[in-house]
């Protein structure tokens, strides 16, 4: 029986499988940027982001995806960052967000 096109599908699963997720890179990221431990995911960085003003680029989401090992499309997303540094200045927790982005990009490239 051929598949019928209903014009919609069921949404893809959003379950994060922590057994499958490779947390090694995340641990490495934490050791390279220790201040990341203080992140409370408040989203100030995303709100002020220069690239975020023009695209859907969301720093907080990239951090989250990286920590969960969901690397698909992440490198392309991070390439949008202009490294302007506004996010560092607005972070209430003193997270070195620029170092975070540079190191996430490097870690994604290193594997």
């Amino acid at each position, binding site marked *: 029986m051929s598949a019928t096109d209903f014009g919609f599908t069921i949404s893809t699963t959003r379950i994060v499988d922590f057994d499958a997720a490779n947390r090694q890179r995340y641990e490495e990221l934490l050791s390279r940027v*220790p*201040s990341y431990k203080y992140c409370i995911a408040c989203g100030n960085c995303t709100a*002020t982001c*220069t*690239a975020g*003003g*023009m*695209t859907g680029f969301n720093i907080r989401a990239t951090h989250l995806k990286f920590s969960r090992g969901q690397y698909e499309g992440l490198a*392309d*997303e*991070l*390439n*949008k*960052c*202009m*490294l*302007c*540094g*506004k996010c*560092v*200045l*607005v972070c209430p927790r*003193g997270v*070195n967000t*620029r*170092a975070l982005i*540079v190191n996430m*990009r*490097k870690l994604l*490239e*290193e594997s």
Partner: protein
Amino acid sequence: MFDIFVLPFCAGVVALLAVSLMKYIRWINSFSKRQQITIRRNILSIKILPAIWEMFRECLLHWRITQRNLLLGYMHRSLAFGWFLLIVVGFVQALMACPGGHPFYAAIFFNYFEPRSERIVEFAHSQQIATLMDVLLLYVLSGLFLAMLKKVWSKPLGMKRTTKHNLTDRIAKFSLWCIFPLRLLAEGATSSIYGNGGFLVRWVGTVIAAIGLDSAEIEYLLWVLYSLALGTFFTLMPFTRYMHIFTEVFLIYFRKNGVIEGNKPSGYTKFELSACSRCGICIDHCPVNRELGISNTQGVYLLQTIRNKDLWHRAEQIAANCMVCDRCQVECPVGIDLATIRRQVRSEAHTAIDKPVGYNYLERVHPFNAIGRIAYFGGCMSHLTPGITSAMEQIFKAAGQPYWYMDKEQSICCGRPLLQQGLVKQAEVLRRKNRDMITRSGATMLVTSCPICYQSFVKEYQLSIKVMHHTEYIDMLLRSGKLKVKAGSERIAYHDPCELGRGCGIYQAPRDVLGSVGTLLKTKEERANSLCCGYNLGNISISTDQQQLVRDAALGNLLAPNPDTIATACPMCKRSFARANAIPVKDIAEIVADSLVQD
């Protein structure tokens, strides 16, 4: 006129010349295209004259160091200029003594051969020249004494910290330190047998005799040791920091001819690396050392580490831990382009991620028709300090100047933060977009509020229109009378932002502007000596706490004369100081906008 003991010296000289020549030829061959063209165009130009003057002033007299500290300058000068004169006068002495010509080592071991060789004849003023040689030797020895003193007590020479040298450097230094005392002792021993030499040498000769040493026995040994010390030093020279002795001469010549560092390391970079004498002057002034106590990441260690290929990983770490405040570059007596070399290392470390593929979304930003207007570029940071941008808008309106606030809605970064991290290709994409926007808008001039953007626009954009920082622009408006301000009694301390001051040399315009609205106070460390505000974008390896320590030092300097307001000309510095909540911190634009007089 030969003895077997001259061989170590001769071998050292041959090794030194052969290795240095080989290195220099290889380096010159690997100059970048652009650098080669610059050299070829200028090779026979008149610029050689100021170059020779600078070589004499810096390589021999060490003028820049003398201006920092008299004693330190004396130390370097006595060793460099003193030794140079010792060689020159020695050759003159040998030339006069041997009219029939002499082997080149005769000048170095003159006192040994003088009473022994029949080719050396009696010549006019021989005693005066011997005395002069002794004076010069004493001059060098006094510098040597200071160098030794510096090792144990560096404070009188104006240095808190001195460089930690590696093993080869230390061996070379030891042999260098041995050369002159050994020469004195050897000449003294000869003198006590034959009675030749000047006042100093004769005196040493009598002392040797007086303490009961048999001169005939030790004389030969001393000459052997002297020759060995020379040979060791010369052989090691091309592999140690002492390579700077010759390299600085070349570096000055190339620099005077307009050669500059490129984005990638080239042969010229090798010259810069080897021209570093590892004097360590950069260490004391670096904020990372001063405020954070990290004393192994300064320029001297960066260059030292790059020269050793095995330590590349360490070089990357060193290059990353820098505020890019350019203070070291101002202090460096050799004038090495430390900032660019650091960026080259960062660039190499980030090659894998330097992909200019993510900025397609910028295509959606379109230029505005701004013919006849001034383009105003607030910069990303100014969006976090809206006081500055609204003050600038107020000033434009008050001066009746039509403007286009080009990054009001959709701001595009100038690219310098990327460039500082060595992401050269990515930065180029942003620059191309901004350049295109500005050119197509038809704007007549570009005014920017952020010194980071300003430096980028001035040095990296090659725009055809004039670029001004808002301090210069306001200064111009005030001078031409388009803007009128009322003078107040506010006591203001001004902070020179690194990028504006050391980066672009703008020190006077902001001071003139502030002088017309209030009382400008002097601070201890200002202008080229200004301290980093701690929050710059250059360093991504230190933490916020560490940034605050750097900030506090700069704040302390500003608060010392007890001002009412701290003024700065950089949104980043403003935010940095404002966070400390000490006293009001305002940008110059805000201060001027507050004291505008409406006609």
